[in-house]
């Protein structure tokens, strides 16, 4: 089912590729490995790493996208984190933010807790759920060629956009992002809003 196609992509390279052309896009990352991936691609004042609140990365991005309609907003998160906040897909679809894209780095595992299989390993199709919820653009990426097609959709396509990228299960080396919440909040807002 879910494994009908071979999974060959490396999560680090995928996230680095998506972020390479991000310009001034704002980025929210879900807890754990997706945050490490984004950090490995280079820290940015336009990044906010969510370290807890499993299931909150998409609603976090939604609020930001609605507050900043002139900016591209990305949420990059894991399949486990996404599964815990599935209802938020319906909530995004109701608001239909054109500037918002969700990227799920789907290793079909709860990587941080020991690699237990997630629902996507058993055929649960989160992009199809996003479609059912009413996302405008939905894609599943297995290959580099598909990734190249998806990147413009993620960075410029009329949203809400939802892209799952299937990646190999091996965990990548931990690259710790900042975890001081007040500092991150301050630097993110100062950079975005020019507030002291």
């Amino acid at each position: 089912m879910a494994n009908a196609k071979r999974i060959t992509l490396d999560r680090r390279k995928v996230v680095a590729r998506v972020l390479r052309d991000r310009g001034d896009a704002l980025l929210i990352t879900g807890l754990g490995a997706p945050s490490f991936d984004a950090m490995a691609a280079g820290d940015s004042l336009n990044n906010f790493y969510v370290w807890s609140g499993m299931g909150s990365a998409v609603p976090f991005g939604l609020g930001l996208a609605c507050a900043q309609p002139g900016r591209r907003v990305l949420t990059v998160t894991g399949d486990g984190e996404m599964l815990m906040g599935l209802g938020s897909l319906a909530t995004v679809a109701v608001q239909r933010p054109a500037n918002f894209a969700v990227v799920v780095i789907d290793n079909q595992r709860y990587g941080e807790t020991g690699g237990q299989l997630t629902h996507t390993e058993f055929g649960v199709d989160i992009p199809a759920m996003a479609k059912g919820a009413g996302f405008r653009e939905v894609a599943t990426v297995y290959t580099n060629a598909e990734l190249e097609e998806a990147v413009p959709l993620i960075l410029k396509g009329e949203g809400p956009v939802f892209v799952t990228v299937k990646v190999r299960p091996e965990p990548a080396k931990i690259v710790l992002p900042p975890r001081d919440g007040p500092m991150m909040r301050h630097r993110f807002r100062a950079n975005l809003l020019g507030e002291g």
Partner: protein
Amino acid sequence: MAQAKAKAKPKSRAKAGAARHWTADIFDVLKRHNLKQVAYVPDTGQAPLIEACIRDNEIRAIPLTTEEEGIGVLAGAHLGGEEGALLLQSSGIGNCINMLGVPIECRMPLLMIVTMRGEWGEFNPWQLPMSQGTQAALEAVGVIVLRADSAERVGETVAAAAKMAFDAGRVVAVLIGQRVVGHKNWDR
């Protein structure tokens, strides 16, 4: 459900010389009470227990998208004549509070095995608020809370909790201290 690819190797965290990992003591209690449905959102500390449940032929190991689902699953199991347990990390307690009204109002048995994150030696400050409020939140809605803060006490504490849950018909949570679980290894 058969999680075919689940690794069978027990976690190396068990101290040298101590032949048994504390999760094995929990597993024995689950088997002694003939539990049939074990629902979980994974936590590193309980990984060997989850793996043992997946491997066991009589237990159906049920992965959840969010912890509160497990409260419902086990209420339904009880209605149908089976019992079970919910395995979760303390952060998941926040997701469960409202749903706990079902077993509490219906006086159904429920056993929750909760591994703590955000206390002893925690390095991630974002884990602290929920963990510091975990016991208070559970008690505020009427859950009986027992705690084990050393590996040797885990087995007897879970055994006691299981009796209170399944024999006395109450909702009981066992909090297993982060001291038992160990620090998270961030230098992978």
